[in-house]
């Protein structure tokens, strides 16, 4: 399964007040699900089934909306958040999307999770002209306003991230021989595609070994052994947290010392690196766009403290070590900003218009220097990432804020 595990953060930072967006006329306009009193928002998350680990994102979003409602809502309107379970099954996602749109009459569908589920409902949402906003997946295809003007992603896509690693390898590793471990699904394949693209014409020569694993595999030890034996000096680790920990440990135990690139999905200090052993993780490079709530360097900052206070008050059952809860918090802040910009014109058309009108929006839990910008031709809200290297204790940022070339 794939997921879009990512985290983000955003802030409802006041800088955004710069755009008081706004329909010039004071006439109130409402689409389905919106009224003077409330705004109905639908969400689909896997609360059951093999991907239930991601369910916490849906709950975190709800907890953030509780906070907004406690503070008076958005322009005086309370958010009514309806979140449904699809068990990570595309047919169920279709059914739940139809329930939200046809029976619950929501204004928009927000943060439906998973590439397969979102692919399954994309045609329907666009045909019905209902916003499918900030989907929780890192696939590239959500940035396609021409064909799917009602669908928009949120997090940087997997391919972008992979290209960043490719570029870094080409610039920094002499005579690279690359070994890749990837999860056998759309998420892993997207990374792989981005990597090949980033390496260019020589990709097939530079990549000397690829091994995949299934989420049902108990361990990835065998794959790591095989990759090491390929003679590679670069290891690209495209795995979800549990498998990332196993791979980091195994690489170290085998005495293999490659340049180790770990995908952002698993860049958590306390839930990935610590289980593997911090000393074994030293030197790993990743790229990120959000803060890791378990990285000591952020924990004294205001962004983290605010987040922590919110977690304690509104989502005490949630795990403060989980980056998913940072992700849910941040993406919810992005939506709140869009709805603020909508003012009194809460039609589906205006929601899409405002979602495509975010300018340099700052989200507190995103890394310094990273902000959200969209436009009528740019349905990719977060495109910037920063490289960081683990020093045995914290992630140390290095280099510039990176954005995909050509965008």
């Amino acid at each position, binding site marked *: 399964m794939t997921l879009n595990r990512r985290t983000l953060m955003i802030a409802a930072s006041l800088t955004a007040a710069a755009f008081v967006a706004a329909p010039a006329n004071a006439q109130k306009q409402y689409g389905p699900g919106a009224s003077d009193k409330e705004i109905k928002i639908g969400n689909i998350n896997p609360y*059951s089934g093999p991907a*239930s680990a991601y369910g916490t994102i849906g709950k975190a979003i709800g907890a953030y909306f509780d906070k907004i409602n406690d503070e008076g809502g958005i322009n005086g309107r309370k958010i009514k958040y309806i*979140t*449904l379970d699809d068990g990570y099954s595309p047919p169920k996602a279709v*059914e739940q999307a139809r329930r939200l749109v*046809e029976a619950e009459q929501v204004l928009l569908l927000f943060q439906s999770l998973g590439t397969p589920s979102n692919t*399954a409902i994309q045609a*329907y949402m666009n045909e019905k002209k209902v916003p499918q906003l900030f989907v929780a997946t890192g696939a590239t295809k959500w940035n396609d306003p021409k064909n799917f003007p009602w669908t928009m992603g949120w997090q940087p896509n997997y391919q972008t991230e992979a290209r960043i690693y490719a570029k870094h390898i080409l610039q920094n590793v002499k005579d690279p021989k690359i070994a890749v471990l990837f999860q056998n699904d759309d998420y892993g394949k997207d990374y792989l595609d981005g990597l090949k693209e980033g390496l260019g014409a020589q990709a097939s020569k530079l990549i000397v070994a690829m091994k995949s694993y299934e989420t049902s595999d108990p361990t990835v030890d065998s794959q790591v052994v095989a990759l090491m034996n390929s003679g590679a000096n670069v290891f690209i680790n495209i795995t979800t947290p549990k498998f990332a920990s196993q791979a980091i440990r195994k690489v170290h135990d085998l005495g293999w010392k490659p340049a180790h690139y770990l995908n952002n999905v698993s860049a958590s200090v306390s839930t990935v690196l610590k289980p593997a052993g911090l000393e074994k993780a030293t030197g790993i490079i990743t790229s990120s766009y959000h803060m890791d709530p378990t990285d000591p360097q952020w924990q004294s900052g205001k962004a983290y403290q605010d987040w922590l206070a919110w977690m304690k008050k509104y989502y005490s059952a949630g795990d403060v070590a989980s980056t998913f809860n940072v992700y849910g918090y941040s993406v919810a802040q992005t939506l709140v900003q869009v709805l603020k910009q909508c003012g009194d014109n809460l039609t589906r058309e205006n929601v899409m218009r405002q979602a495509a009108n975010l300018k340099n929006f700052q989200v507190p839990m995103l890394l310094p220097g990273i902000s959200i910008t969209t436009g009528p031709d740019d349905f990719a809200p977060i495109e910037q990432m920063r490289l960081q290297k683990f020093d045995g204790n914290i992630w140390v940022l290095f280099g510039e804020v990176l954005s995909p070339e050509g965008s």
Partner: protein
Amino acid sequence: MAATSGLATIPVAASGTNWRRIGVAVAIAAALVLPWLVSDYRVFQFTLAGSYAVALLGLNLLTGYNGQISLGHGAFFAIGGYTAAILMHRLGVPYYLTILPAGAAAFIVGVLFGLPALRLENLYLALVTLSMAVATPQFLKYFDHWTGGSQGIVLRKPAAPTWLPIGNDKWLYYQMLVVLLIVFWAGSNLLAGRTGRALVALRDHPISATVMGINPVFYKTCAFGVSAMFTGIAGAMAAIATGFVAPDSFNVFLSISFLVGSVVGGIATVAGAVFGGFFIQFIPNLANDISDAAPWAIYGLFLLAFMYAMPTGIAGFIRTMAVRYAPKFRTAVGEQPTSQPGSHS
């Protein structure tokens, strides 16, 4: 699990066909009227429930009537779904022409699979079919040239003909209903006749059945093939209704849901397949409505509750109640362990 030969043989209305006929007629009438009473979204749900019912009839045939357990019928559902999707998407075949090839593809795989399965019983068959369920998404991803890999295949949803002003959902629903009725009619005829008796005999008394001249290889393989075919047809219908197939649509939990549906509905009954279809379609939603913190826990409690209250499934329960409270029904109850459609009356 252990011997499936321990299945309860549920006595069934064998001769008193009046009650049964009335029940079937009422059920069909209700099914015809239903789409006009509920929203399109509900109609879509019922379309899915109907296709699950067809899949469960297939599983019932194998597990209920022939005593061969399967934890892997999601694989046949996937074969049907992907056959339909590939024909539509890559070869431009109209959707209504994909149902039969989907059934045929599943039939062939079912027969091929049934041959080695013949030598395996109970636990071993459970392992093999469970493996099949686990391997299905991996296979689908591996042959990505045809299947679109993990991205799946998006299908254009069939539209109702312009001269028929009923909307796409009702249109699909009625087509599903037609297929369902044909499959159920064929299935119950098959089970009520020689074949059904042979299958049950092989389940309950394998050795004497063989002595009596029932060829176990033929019938057991046949049961696998036909069972897979029904489930494949159902997979095609569900794929067309959903408009999308992907490996994640056919994970292990789908296969397990099928077994759950067929047992909760009433194993070795035709009507049970319908109840089971409703169960696997609607109970997870109900569980989610009760708790979105841990819907699976609620779903699990539902399973336990159903098994306590109705150990022989919904169909078995209704029959027991009917025997107890409807004296006329009692005379209609024979020991013949075959079943009839709509015997839930």
